[in-house]
């Protein structure tokens, strides 16, 4: 087996965190509570930062250390804080989220997407012997696809937003393996963008919530002049 080739300790730990990142992606699909979704996103971002530091150590790259620091500042600290400031009620009041599929069905979809990503990446895999790419690329792609799926399947504003952010996390995880020396400015811009997205979506969702009384996207199908009583 090619996996049994000797790998260093940071690489082994990166593999471990890759498994946990995939698991937290599944957990985000499986949770009903808005707060839980945010919590799993924070865990995933922490694992991502850990991966950055580990790969930075393995590849002797200062960029990756900086990326890890940016990830922690932007995704572990700033985003939950912004969400709490703009959407506190939404975060703590909402319990059961309306979903397009029930939980086992959406988990099966997530599983299917993970398989698809593994199959898609397969041909590239045979071209590279690099163990880091072999781990990060398929799992990063799975993260992107599962995040995209929760964007479609969820019907609440905050979980949809977290879906977008999870997609970004997945792309990031694949990215640190393929292009470890990406200019720092690009990553800084992405981190800034992500925070801006959260601020904008948070404010828009808060406005919608104030006028209509819900942020359930599935219910926002008709245009009405005046605030309607919900259900």
């Amino acid at each position, binding site marked *: 087996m090619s996996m049994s080739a000797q790998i260093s300790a940071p690489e*082994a730990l990166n593999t471990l965190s890759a*498994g946990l990142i*995939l*698991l937290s992606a599944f957990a985000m699909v499986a949770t009903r509570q808005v707060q839980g979704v945010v919590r799993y996103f924070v865990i995933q971002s922490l694992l991502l930062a850990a991966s950055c530091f580990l790969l930075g150590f393995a590849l002797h790259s200062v960029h990756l250390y900086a990326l890890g620091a940016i990830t922690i500042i932007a995704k572990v600290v700033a985003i939950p804080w912004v969400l709490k400031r703009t959407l506190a009620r939404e975060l703590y009041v909402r319990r059961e989220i309306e979903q397009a599929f029930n939980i086992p069905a959406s*988990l099966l979809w997530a599983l299917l997407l993970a398989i698809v990503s593994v199959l898609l990446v397969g041909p590239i895999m045979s071209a590279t012997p690099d163990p880091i790419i072999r781990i990060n690329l*398929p*799992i990063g792609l799975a993260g992107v696809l599962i995040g995209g799926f929760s964007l479609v399947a969820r019907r609440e504003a905050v979980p949809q937003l977290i879906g977008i952010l999870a997609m970004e996390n997945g792309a990031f995880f694949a990215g640190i393996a393929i292009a470890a020396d990406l200019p720092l400015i690009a990553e800084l811009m992405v981190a800034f963008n992500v925070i801006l997205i959260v601020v904008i979506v948070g404010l828009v969702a808060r406005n919608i919530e104030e006028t209509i009384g819900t942020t359930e996207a599935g219910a926002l199908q008709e245009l009405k002049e005046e605030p309607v009583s919900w259900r």
Partner: protein
Amino acid sequence: MKQTIAYNFAQVLFVLAFAPLYSGVLSRLKEMVQSKRGPSIFQPYRDLWKLFHKDQIISSETTWIFRITPYLVFITPLFVTILIPVLTDYPLVFAFMGDMLAGGFFLALGGFFAALAAVDTGNPYGPMGASRTRMVGFLAEPVFMIVFFTVSFVAQSTIPYIVQQRWIASPAAFFSPAHVLLLIAFLMLILAEGGRIPVDNPAGHFELAMIDESKGLEFSGRDAALMKWGGQMKFLVLGCIFLNVLLAPWGLAQGRAIPQILIAVPLISIKLFLFVLVLLSIETSLAKLRLFRISEFLGAAFIASVTAMITSIFFAS
């Protein structure tokens, strides 16, 4: 040869002797977390002693199934014990008699007869608990299967001793995503099969909400003691498989000298104690799931195990 047979029986003795203590420690710690004092950790031994000295009443309506069930429930975990590494690192004499799948079937055999015996009595609560256990069982079965398939794929074998050596030999395999997912799936499986908290409340006394306990309601005296002891041993054996074969294959006796076996006993007890702390944190932080949420719980375990299988096949190619 004689020595390995002796060690094999030492493993059986270990499981026999420590299963009540294991449950006692868990329940005592749980009570302490809930700011109660709780019974002594040796209470399960006293309970067994008391039950063995009580009169036994068997309904005249029951058949032979009801009479042999306690013995089957008691003996099946012991059969599994001789197949798995409990104390030693190297295969013992019966190790190649059956693989992990055989162990699963042994445990399922005990569960099957326990369910039959519950129906046999005609007590209204027995069949209800039995049908619920079957529901949990058939949801857990595919997870069991896929966990074993994945393990056999990674280790090229389903013999527990060889699987364990595989994790020690290859750190890359140990840290692979497949292994992490496998561990999560198997932990969820232990919680479901052992009737622990997110699935079933072992401390509950309300018959309508029981899943696992209600099957034993009709047993008395020696039969009740055997059922209870068997359940505790099953839980310990599942914990041993999880710890010694999958999660932490260290601390087992590597040599054939008797002192090494004796040192292995406290080392494994420490591992089991740490595992009890993990179970404790799960049991005290989660609430019991509603009955129809159990399918979601085991569905998640299934997804984790299938993902483990896919990634293991993929990363090996």
